């Protein structure tokens, strides 16, 4: 059933990380991404890996769920690794030899630096994804929306519709299960009338989707209109004069998180100074 597909990958728990302010978590992830790109050497990853492992341990999310996120970008990692492996073009390129045969064929050549770069790039990409997925695993989509809204607040001064954007996001999230259910219903209705979604080549199958998409779109528009009326009659009139029930509060956890991030940054800078080479 489509309905059972959980949206996002939130892992419900009440851990240290779950209870952090979503704004701080978003900022920490941004910092984390910057750190990943600041690092110049393998040893520089050490503080980041320690930080990451510590966070995962604190979040009480099963390690398996964290690493599952890498699956989605596996192809990208392999692609980047292969490119780096075969196409290192630096002046210091030294083609490797196995039993006297140079590993070189046409424009492909395996160099020592190539291998190192491939490993470095892969590690970088994997850490990038692992880190960001901790955010989505420990923060509900609603909280993420609230966090983004709050972080974007300064943009209000340049007339950017922050509140509207956040409302659109949260309504979209709210309607995902409803529309999933509806899709299920339409698929079944079309199947019961003999529609075939499973056979034929890809073009045929895409064409077979049309009788699902059109009713879905039509109903989405109808729903939007009804929701608009319901919102109107509940006195919605934009961001002006509106109060907010939910307030985000920062606590000691967020302070600790920021402190840890500062520590990691210091370590990375020091390592970059004292170990400027990649290996």
């Amino acid at each position, binding site marked *: 059933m489509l309905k059972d597909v959980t949206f996002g990958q939130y892992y419900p728990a009440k851990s240290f990380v779950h209870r952090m302010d979503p704004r701080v978590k978003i900022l920490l992830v941004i910092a984390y991404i910057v750190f990943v790109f600041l690092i110049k050497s393998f040893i520089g990853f050490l503080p980041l890996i320690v930080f990451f492992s510590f966070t995962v341990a604190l979040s009480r999310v099963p390690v398996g769920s964290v690493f599952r996120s890498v699956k989605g970008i596996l192809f990208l990692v392999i692609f980047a690794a292969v490119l780096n492996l075969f196409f290192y073009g630096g002046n210091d390129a030294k083609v490797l030899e196995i039993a006297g045969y140079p590993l070189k064929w046409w424009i492909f050549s395996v160099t020592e630096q190539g291998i190192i770069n491939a490993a470095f790039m892969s590690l970088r990409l994997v850490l990038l994804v692992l880190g960001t997925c901790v955010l989505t695993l420990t923060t509900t*989509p*609603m909280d993420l929306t609230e966090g983004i809204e709050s972080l974007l607040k300064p943009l209000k001064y340049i007339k950017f519709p922050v509140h509207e954007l956040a*409302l659109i996001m*949260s*309504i979209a*999230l*709210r309607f995902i*299960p*409803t529309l999933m*259910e509806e899709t299920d219903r339409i698929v079944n209705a079309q199947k019961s009338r003999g529609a075939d979604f499973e056979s034929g080549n890809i073009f045929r199958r895409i064409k077979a989707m049309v009788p699902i998409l059109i009713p879905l779109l039509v109903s989405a528009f109808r*729903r939007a209109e*009804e*929701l608009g*009326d*319901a*919102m*109107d*009659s*509940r*006195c*919605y*009139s934009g961001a002006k*004069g*509106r*109060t*907010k*029930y*939910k*307030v985000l509060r920062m606590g000691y956890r967020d302070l600790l998180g920021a402190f840890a991030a500062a520590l990691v940054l210091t370590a990375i800078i020091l390592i970059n100074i004292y170990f400027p080479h990649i290996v």
Partner: protein
Amino acid sequence: MNALEIKNLDFAYEGGKNVLSGINLTVSEGEFVCLLGRNGSGKSTLARLINGLLLPARGSVCVFGMDSAEKKNLFEIRKRAGMVFQNPDNQTVASIVEDDLAFGPENVGVERAEIGERISYALSAVGMEEFRYATPSKLSGGQKQRIAIAGVLALKPDMLILDESTAMLDPKGRAEVTSVVRELNKNGMTVISITHYMDEAVDSDRVIVLSEGKIVMQGVPAEIFSRAEELARYGLNVPKAAYIAKKLRENGLPIAEGIYEGEALEKALCELFQKG
């Protein structure tokens, strides 16, 4: 002051003929009024006019003395006359019940602490206290609709307009919603319920029948439901109990006129049996 005062109301959608014409209707505070009519009789349009979602072409709609034609009144009208719609899925804005109930009070600028209180009040009024942190999409139809009512109650309205709010529910959900609404009415809420389920109209103070945009019948339920032929002409049936009572009467059983309610019929039949 009357809760609702409609005078010589005409309404037409753009480029169409009149959907409502010559409507005069007064509802006093605390009254429970049922609007009946078949599809296309204009009853939903009337509901929208009361809430200020539509504006009259001619005539006036006054809610608690405020004329909906004046734009500055709309906000206040919607605050005092809350509306619950037909589809329980299309009325919630948030993925958590609590956040959804906060939406109304947030819109009118209620202080944070009071919003919390209002949410508790609204949830207890519809008997859904334990669902404060639930996800609406995982609730049953009846529960969703009770949450929709709670969402309106959080604005502390004095009038509730139900636009076929039970039409998409199963019998259990319908019973849940109806009993919540009755309870609210007992505590002083003015209720205007639009429905085509006759059995829901049985408990109301007044029944109004609309047909082709005009009020064609009006009166207490007992009176309206004794006019079965006339109702049939407007595409409506009498409640089941009234129908059974009528058939029994036709077959010679001495059942009093004006019985239209299950319980009353039951009592009458029991008395008959006792007499032998």
